[in-house]
């Protein structure tokens, strides 16, 4: 059993915290990881900044620009992550990012480095499912890395089953239409129907809900429909212009988990 599956077996209402590597300053990556875990985060999702993050809203876009300006890139990130498992020995850690930087780094080199530093899984939202299935899945398996797939209210049942079959981690339920950090009020009824429809499918993977979840209320609501939630933009927003990013992040998690 991998670290992700173990976490879901041992805990309920998991909190997956996203943050952008190299933000707010270049060397915040590991201190933030440690602070989040110490404060109660159950899973970490580290964003690899990209110049053109299509699935992200303004908050994560801005953090990505700042991180890139700080000098973050994949060689620097893997350098920092050498000490990842010393800092957070047991917590599942995912890398999230867009395909282009991975392609330039070299797909297999990337997977090998990720596995070497103790990464458990990857979220590559613009990697097409067909390409994943044919080319990437065997490579992910070779390096013991798990793929996390997004599903949305528009994803067909056939496709959800296919994604579920290919994953050994969890499914990432996008809460509604929009990019990360979306602030428009969701259509509550439609959202309810969507969460219930997915829950009734008896999928083999656990489910985390993400996009637009910003506080304890949102987290608790997500937990009533799934195995937990993913929070990113709200944390990034809290980290803007703060003196002590790790302390702010720890406080943020304590309030959510409260």
């Amino acid at each position, binding site marked *: 059993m991998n670290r992700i599956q173990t976490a879901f077996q041992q805990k309920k209402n998991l909190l997956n915290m996203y943050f952008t590597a190299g933000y707010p300053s270049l060397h915040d990556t590991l201190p933030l990881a440690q602070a989040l875990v110490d404060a109660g985060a159950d899973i970490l999702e580290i964003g690899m900044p*990209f110049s053109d993050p299509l699935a992200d809203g303004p908050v994560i876009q801005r953090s990505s620009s700042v991180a890139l300006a700080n000098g973050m890139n994949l060689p620097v990130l893997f350098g920092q992550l050498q000490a990842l498992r010393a800092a957070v020995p047991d917590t599942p850690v995912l890398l999230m990012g867009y395909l282009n930087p991975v392609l330039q780094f070299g797909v297999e080199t990337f997977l090998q480095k990720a596995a070497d530093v103790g990464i458990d899984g990857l979220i590559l939202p613009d990697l097409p499912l067909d390409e994943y299935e044919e080319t990437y899945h065997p490579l992910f398996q070779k390096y013991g890395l798990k793929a996390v797939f997004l599903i949305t209210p528009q994803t067909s049942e056939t496709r959800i089953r296919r994604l579920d079959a290919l994953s050994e981690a969890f499914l990432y339920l996008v809460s509604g239409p929009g990019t990360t950090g979306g602030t428009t009020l969701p259509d509550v009824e439609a959202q309810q129907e969507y969460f219930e429809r997915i829950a009734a499918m008896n999928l083999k993977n656990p489910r985390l809900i993400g996009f637009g979840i910003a506080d304890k209320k949102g987290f608790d609501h997500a937990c009533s429909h799934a195995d937990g939630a993913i929070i990113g933009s709200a944390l990034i927003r809290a980290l803007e212009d703060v003196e002590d990013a790790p302390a702010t992040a720890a406080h943020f998690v304590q309030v959510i988990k409260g």
Partner: protein
Amino acid sequence: MTPSYQQPSARGYYGEFGGAFVPEMLFPNVEELRTRYLEILADPDFQIDLQHLLRDYVGRPTPLFEAKRLSERYGTRVFLKREDLCHTGAHKINNTVGQILLAQRLGKKRIIAETGAGQHGVATATVCALMGLPCVVYMGATDIERQAPNVARMRLLGAEVRRVTSGSQTLKDATNEAIRDWIANPVDTHYIIGSVVGPHPYPDLVARLQAVISEEMRAQLLEKTGTELPDFVVACVGGGSNAAGAFYHFLDEPSVRLIAVEAAGHGIHSGHSAATSVLGTPGIIHGSRTLLMQDEHGQITEPYSLSAGLDYPGIGPLHAHLGASGRAEFIAITDDEALQAVSELSRLEGIIPALETAHALAALAQLGAGPDDVVVVNLSGRGDKDLETYLKNMDKLL
């Protein structure tokens, strides 16, 4: 049998370029389009509506004009395909009339678009007004500044122009924002992309809608020169929609040399350029695997051209394939060379071209075409929108 350059594979690849690298949030939108576009385009009722609009609204066929004084200047036989005479002043409307009819058949109630120079934005706002559909156009703040007349046109046509302030605040970023809008509005909205870029099926869809340019060229050349096939077809390439349209019906005619003209900006290696075929490497931009300008870490870099329609950091996957396979030849033209071509066409033929188009005209000097050769330059747009830029550079124009 030689494979056709026209048709991408089932997954939207031209050689090694193309595909649909989209996040799950976009997958249903793109999939709906992919599964329906060919059937809708082939539908006789669609074709009747399209042909009617192209003739009576756009003003097609556009003339193929033999430019005698320009021909004399370059010692070859130059024809200009007058896309600048299309309604709204550029070829862009060929695509938008087709896509608005497509959007109606898909039951869409709202239209979004990105624009660089503003020509695609105007062409989209125009067809939305015609069909009574709400229209939102994303435009970089930098482009809003340098293409003010087109911003005014879009607003007059009833479109909402949304100012994009992320990144370099130009076409790339406007495209990102349009895609994000589509993610947020997956059911009722159609995204009319303006070039042969983006995830499959967009490059093929836009190329098919622009192919009317080369279809007409063949018939007009037959009438004027006695043969359907010219020796050269020349077109400028930003994303590459007018070039795709001008090349389309010649792609599988190896005797026709296809010349794609990029913007060198201040010079290819000056650090201020948009010459993607030289400076680009394979990667993914806006959902397509193609050549793009990026740094060693795969971050997309900011291109530069004085012309707002050519400073896109990628090229359409069809063009990347035409370059890689040697089917098309790429030439890069600097800002100054383009400005000289503006002046030259204005004075020799009485036609003020768009700055984008002027890059194609400037390539005439580099073709090495002989006196018996027939060269067709796709005159993709007129220069009205660039008057402010021309005024600022009067010293280079006169």
